[in-house]
C-alpha cells in the first residue's frame, strides 16, 4: 500500500518511536494547557484525551485566553475490578487534580475528567502507587477487556475474569514510553527496535479493538457490540468447557454516511479453554494485517469482516492460531441489565449492586454518592476480595461484603440514593458523557437523559408500565458510546436539542434497532413514545418485550446484523393509529 494513501494517524504512529512523539517536551511547556497536535493522537494510547470545556468556549478568546484545555484519563481495569484501596486512590486524585467527580464507563472503567496538563504526571504517579495504569485504555490497540463483573457467583465467572486479565496482559503494548513519560522511568536504549511490540509492531492496529467475555444467561457486557467476544459454555456442573467466539461487532457510525453502520458480532465458532489466548492473538494480528489503514471510518474489524467475509477470516485465524473451530455451542442470554441490590455469593459473602445514574459518581445536593462510596471503600478496605466492580451498565458492585458489615454498608448506600427504587426505565438507562467534555458531542446526553426519563416516567405511569424493564440509552453523537443501537429505545444526538429516535432492539442485546424518527426534540420524543407505550400496555403478548413488540405491532422494521441498518427506516404506520 503506497504510504501516502495511509491515514494521517498511520504516519503519526510510524514516526512516534513507539508512542513517545514529543509528549515529554510538551508537558514542560507551562504557557499552554495543550499538547502538540500529533501528540494528541499518541496520548490516547497512554489512556488520555486532550479535551476542552465546551461550556466555556464562547468566552475564552474574548478574555484573551486559549480554550479551557484539560485531560480525561481512562483507567485500565480488566473486568472492571478495583480494590477498595485503588478506589480510594482514584477518589483522591479526582478530588485533588480532577473535576471532583469520577465517571464509571460503559466498558467497566473509571474516567477522570478536568486534569490540567501541569498535574498529569503527579496524578499518574499517584495511581501508579496503587498499581493502576491507563496504558491502552484508548488508542488503536486492544482496549480494556470486559467481563461479567461478579465472579463470586460461580466458578464460571471466576474463569471469565481470569481470562479477561490474561488477554489484557498479553495484548497490552510493551513500549517503555509510558513509564518514561509519566513515571520518569529509565529511557530504555534501542527503543526503536521492533521487538518492543512483538504483537503490534510500530503502527499498532488500524483502529481501536475491543474484547469482552460473557457468562450466560447475563449479556451485561453487550457481547455483540464488540470486535471480539467470548461466550462461556458451561457443563452441567457449572464449569467452563470452552468458549463460543464472536467477532465483528461495533456501534460507531456517521450521520448521513450509510457505508458506516453499527454491526452485531457474528459467531465464529467454538474453542476449548486452552485455546482462548491463541485465538485472541490470531484475531488481533489478522486485523492488524487485514484492517483498512487508509480510511479510519472503515478500519474497524466489523468492516474487515464485511469486506473479506467471515469464512476467509475464520480460515486465517485458524491458520495463525493453529487450530480448528468447532460449531458454536448453544447458549441463551436473558438480558443486558444489572441485578440491583444484594446477591449471595457461594462463599457466603454478599455482593451489592448499586445504581449510579449514567455512571457519574459525584457529591450532589442531597446525594453525596462520591463520599458514600468512599466511606464504603474504607469499610471494605481490609476485606479479602472486597472489591469494587464497575459494570458494563455504568453501575458499581460492592463485592464480598461480610454479613457483619452488610447492614452498615446498605445504610450508607441507601442514604446516598444508590439503592432508591427506580422506575423500570431508569434502572435500564445509560447515557454517554457528551457535553461539556466530549469533543465529538453534537448534543447533550449525560446531563439531559435524567430529565427526559422524568417525563417518560409520567407517560409510562399513565399506562401502568412504571415497573416494566425497558432499556433506554442515549448518546450525544452517532459514535454510540452507550450502545444506543442495542437499546429498545435509542436516542442519538443530531444537533443541539435534536435527536434521532431508534426502536426495536432486542432486550437481550442480540438485535440492533432501527431509525424511527429523525431530529426530534424533547417534546417530540415524549409525544412519539406515549402512543407506543399505550399500545404496548394494551396489546403486548405475555412477557413480550417492548423492543420486540414495536416490530410485531408493525411500528418499525426489523434490523439484521447491520448491513441493513439503514434500510427501510422510519415509522411504518401512523403513530395515532396505535
Amino acid at each position, binding site marked *: 500500500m503506497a504510504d501516502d494513501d495511509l491515514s494521517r494517524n498511520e504516519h503519526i504512529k510510524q514516526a512516534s518511536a513507539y508512542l513517545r512523539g514529543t509528549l515529554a517536551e510538551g508537558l514542560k511547556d*507551562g*504557557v*499552554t*494547557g495543550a499538547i502538540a497536535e500529533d501528540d494528541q493522537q499518541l496520548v490516547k494510547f497512554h489512556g488520555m484525551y486532550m479535551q476542552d*470545556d465546551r461550556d*466555556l468556549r464562547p*468566552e*475564552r*478568546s*474574548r*478574555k*484573551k*485566553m*486559549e480554550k*479551557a*484545555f*484539560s485531560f480525561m484519563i481512562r483507567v485500565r481495569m480488566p473486568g472492571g475490578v478495583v480494590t477498595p484501596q485503588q478506589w480510594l486512590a482514584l477518589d483522591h486524585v479526582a478530588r*485533588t487534580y480532577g473535576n471532583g467527580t469520577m465517571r464509571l464507563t460503559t466498558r467497566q472503567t473509571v474516567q477522570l475528567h478536568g486534569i*490540567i496538563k*501541569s*498535574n498529569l504526571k*503527579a496524578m499518574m504517579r499517584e495511581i501508579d502507587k496503587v498499581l493502576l495504569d491507563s496504558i491502552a485504555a484508548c488508542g488503536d490497540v486492544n482496549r480494556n477487556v470486559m467481563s461479567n463483573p461478579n465472579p463470586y457467583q460461580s466458578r464460571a465467572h471466576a474463569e471469565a475474569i481470569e481470562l479477561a486479565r490474561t488477554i489484557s496482559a498479553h495484548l497490552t503494548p510493551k513500549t517503555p514510553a509510558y513509564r518514561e513519560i509519566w513515571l520518569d522511568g529509565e529511557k530504555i536504549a534501542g527503543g526503536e527496535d521492533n521487538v518492543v511490540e512483538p504483537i503490534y509492531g510500530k503502527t499498532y492496529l488500524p483502529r481501536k479493538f475491543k474484547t469482552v467475555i460473557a457468562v450466560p444467561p447475563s449479556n451485561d457486557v453487550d457481547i455483540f457490540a464488540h470486535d471480539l467476544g467470548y461466550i462461556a459454555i458451561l457443563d452441567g456442573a457449572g464449569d467452563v468447557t470452552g468458549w463460543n467466539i464472536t467477532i465483528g461487532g461495533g456501534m460507531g457510525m456517521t450521520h448521513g454516511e450509510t457505508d458506516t453502520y453499527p454491526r452485531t458480532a457474528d459467531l465464529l465458532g467454538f474453542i476449548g479453554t486452552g485455546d482462548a489466548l491463541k485465538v485472541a492473538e490470531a484475531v488481533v494480528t489478522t486485523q492488524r494485517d487485514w484492517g483498512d489503514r487508509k480510511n479510519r471510518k472503515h478500519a474497524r474489524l466489523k468492516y474487515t469482516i464485511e469486506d473479506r467475509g467471515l469464512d476467509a477470516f475464520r480460515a486465517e485465524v485458524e491458520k495463525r492460531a493453529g487450530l480448528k473451530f468447532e460449531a458454536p455451542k448453544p447458549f441463551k442470554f436473558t438480558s443486558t441489565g444489572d441485578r440491583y441490590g444484594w446477591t449471595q455469593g457461594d462463599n457466603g459473602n454478599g455482593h451489592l449492586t448499586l445504581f449510579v445514574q449514567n455512571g457519574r459518581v459525584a457529591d450532589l445536593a442531597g446525594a453525596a454518592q462520591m463520599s458514600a462510596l468512599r466511606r464504603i471503600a474504607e469499610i471494605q478496605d481490609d476485606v479479602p476480595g472486597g472489591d469494587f466492580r464497575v459494570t458494563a451498565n455504568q453501575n458499581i458492585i460492592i463485592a464480598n461484603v461480610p454479613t457483619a458489615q452488610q447492614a452498615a454498608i446498605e445504610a450508607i448506600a441507601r442514604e446516598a440514593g444508590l439503592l432508591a427504587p427506580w422506575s423500570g426505565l431508569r434502572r435500564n438507562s445509560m447515557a454517554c458523557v457528551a457535553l461539556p467534555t466530549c469533543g465529538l458531542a453534537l448534543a447533550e446526553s449525560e446531563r439531559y437523559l435524567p430529565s427526559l426519563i422524568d417525563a417518560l416516567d409520567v407517560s409510562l405511569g399513565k399506562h401502568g408500565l412504571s415497573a416494566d424493564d425497558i432499556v433506554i440509552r442515549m448518546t450525544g453523537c452517532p459514535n454510540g458510546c452507550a450502545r444506543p443501537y442495542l437499546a429498545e429505545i435509542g436516542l442519538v444526538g443530531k444537533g443541539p436539542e435534536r435527536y434521532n429516535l431508534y426502536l426495536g432492539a432486542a432486550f437481550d442485546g442480540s438485535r440492533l434497532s432501527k431509525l424511527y424518527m429523525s431530529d426530534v426534540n424533547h417534546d417530540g420524543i415524549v409525544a412519539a413514545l406515549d402512543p407506543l407505550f399505550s399500545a404496548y400496555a394494551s396489546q403486548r403478548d405475555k412477557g413480550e418485550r417492548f423492543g420486540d413488540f414495536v416490530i410485531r405491532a408493525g411500528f418499525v422494521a426489523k434490523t439484521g446484523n447491520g448491513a441493513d441498518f439503514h434500510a427501510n427506516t422510519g415509522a411504518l404506520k401512523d403513530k395515532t393509529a396505535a
Partner: protein
Amino acid sequence: MSSIYATIPKTAPFSEEDVALLNRVVGPASPVQRAWLAGFLAGVESVQGAALGAQPAAPARPAEPITIVYASESGNSEKLASDFAKSARKNGLKPTLIDMADLEPSNLTAAKKLIFIAATWGEGEPPARAVRTYGELMADNAPRLDGVEFGVLALGDTAYAEFCAIGKAIDARLESLGAKRVVDRVDCDLDFAVPAETWIGNAVKKLAPEDADRGRVIAVDFGAKEGAKPAGSPNTDIVEAEVTELINLNSSRSDKETYHLALSFDGHAPEYKPGDSLDLYAENDPAYVDELLKLAGLSSDAKLRDELIRTRDVTTLSLKSVETYATQTGHTYVRRLLDDGEAKAWIVDRQLIDLIAEFPTAVTAETLRALTRPLAPRAYSIASSRSEVADEAHLLISAVRYRSNGRNRQGVASNYVAGRVKRGAKVRVKLKPNKHFGLPAADKDIIMVGPGTGVAPFRAFVQERRATQAAGKSWLFFGDRQFTHDFLYQLEWQDALNDGSLTRLDVAFSRDTPEKVYVQNRLLERRKELVEWLDNGAYFYVCGDAKNMAKDVRAALVSAYADVKSLSPEDAERAVAALERDKRYLTDTY
C-alpha cells in the same frame, strides 16, 4: 495677599530700569499671573539649572546651600521636593536635591540646612527605594548632626493606622541626632497640595537668607496648573478619556474579576512611557452613598448626594473623622471610645458608614462634609505602550471586594470600573510618570516579576520592546490562582513568545496543586539561569503586591545568590543591595 510681596527688590540682579520695568508688570499682576510667572521662570530655570549647575538663578552673592532629601515611592514627595528646590533657589538658597535612596547619611553632617520630605508606605514603612538609607539613619552608628537646621514634611494617608509614620520617625530622629528643628513638621493627608505648598512657603521663608524681602516671597503651587511644568515634560493634567474596551479577563469560573480597561483620548493621549501609571478619578457607589445619607437622615439632600458621590471620600474612616464625629454630634459613646483609647482598634476594617450605623444620631450636611476628605484618585499601572496602541492607554484593574464587620465592602475605584462604568463612558485620568520604573537600554536583558495585576506594566514593556525591535532578552514571571481561569493575557503572551518580544515565561498558579506555588518558588527553581542573566547585566523588575509578594521575591533572589554563588546570607544580601544601588532592581509595588 497684597502686592507689596511681589515688588522686585532693588537688590535684585537687574539694572535700575529693568527693576522698574518688571515692577510695572509684576506689581499690579493678579495672584494667578504672578503664580504663572513664578512657575514659568522656575520651570525654565529648573531645566537650564541642571546645565548651569551650581549657578544660582536669583542672587549675585553666593547662595547658602540647602539639602533637600525626599523619600518617595509614587512621586508625590519627589515632586514637592523639586518644588521646594525651585522656590529655595529663587530665594537665595543653593538647593541640592537628593533621593533618599542615593543618600549616604554620613554626608549629612556637612549640611547646614536640611529638609526631608518623606512618604510612608506599606503598613508604616519607608518607600521601597529608601529602606536601606532609612535603616542606616535609624541605626546606632548614625552620624551626629549637631548644628544642622532641619524641617520635615510628611506625606501619608489618614486611612492608614500608621499615618505619616516615616515622616514622624525621621523628624524625631534628626532631633535626637542633635539637629535643630527650625520648621515644625506638617503631616499631609492625600489632599496634600495646599498644606504642602504652605509648608514649603513657610520653610523657605524661615531658611532663606534674612536680608531683603526675598525670604518673604510666597511659595507657589508648582502643581499641575497649565504652564507650570518644565518645558518638554509630559502633560500631567486631568484629562477625559473614553472607555473603548472593558473586559473581565478572568473566566466565569474564577472567583476573581480583573478588568482590561482600554481608554481612548481622541488625539491627546498623555505622553506616557512604559512603567508610568494613570491616576483614575472614580466616583462612589450611589447605593453606598444613599445608605449613608439614609443613616444620617439626609436622604432628601440631592445636592449633598451628588457632591458625595463625585467628590468626597465617603468610605475611609480615620481617627480624625471619629474625633470630628464625637465633637460635632456630641455622641457620648463615640467620645468614650476615643477617651478609652479604643477608637484606633475599632476603626480597623470599618468604614464611615459603620460609624454612623453603629452610633446613630442626627447628622447635618456640614458634619458629613467635615467627616469626609476629598475623594483621591487611584493609581493604575499603564498596561500598554503608545508605540503599539497609539492614542490609547490600557489598564488592568482587579475588583477589590471583601467582607468585614458584617458588611460586603467594595473598593471604590476598582468597582467603579468593574460595575458602574460602561463602554463608551468617559472617565477622568491623570498621568503619573514614574522615572524609577522604566525600560533600560534596548540591548539590556530584563527580568520581570509581576503576578496578578503586577503584570500590567510588563505588558507595556513587552509591547514597547516589540515595537522597537529591542535586542535585549526579556523573561517574565507571572502568577495567579488557577491556570485555567486566571491566566491574564494568556494568548498575548503566547504571541509575544512566538514573535520573540518575550524570550521566556514562567508561571506559578497557587490553587492548581495541593501545595501552593508562587512566583518566588519559580524564581528559586530557575536560580541558576536567573543569576546568569543578572551577571550579564539584566535588569530585575518587581510589580504588584507590596505586603508579601515583593518581600518574598526579594528574599528568594537573596537565597538564589547565596545558593548559586555559594555566598553567606550576608554577602548574598549585599549582592542584591548592590543591584538596588545600581538601579537594576526596580520595584513598583502597592
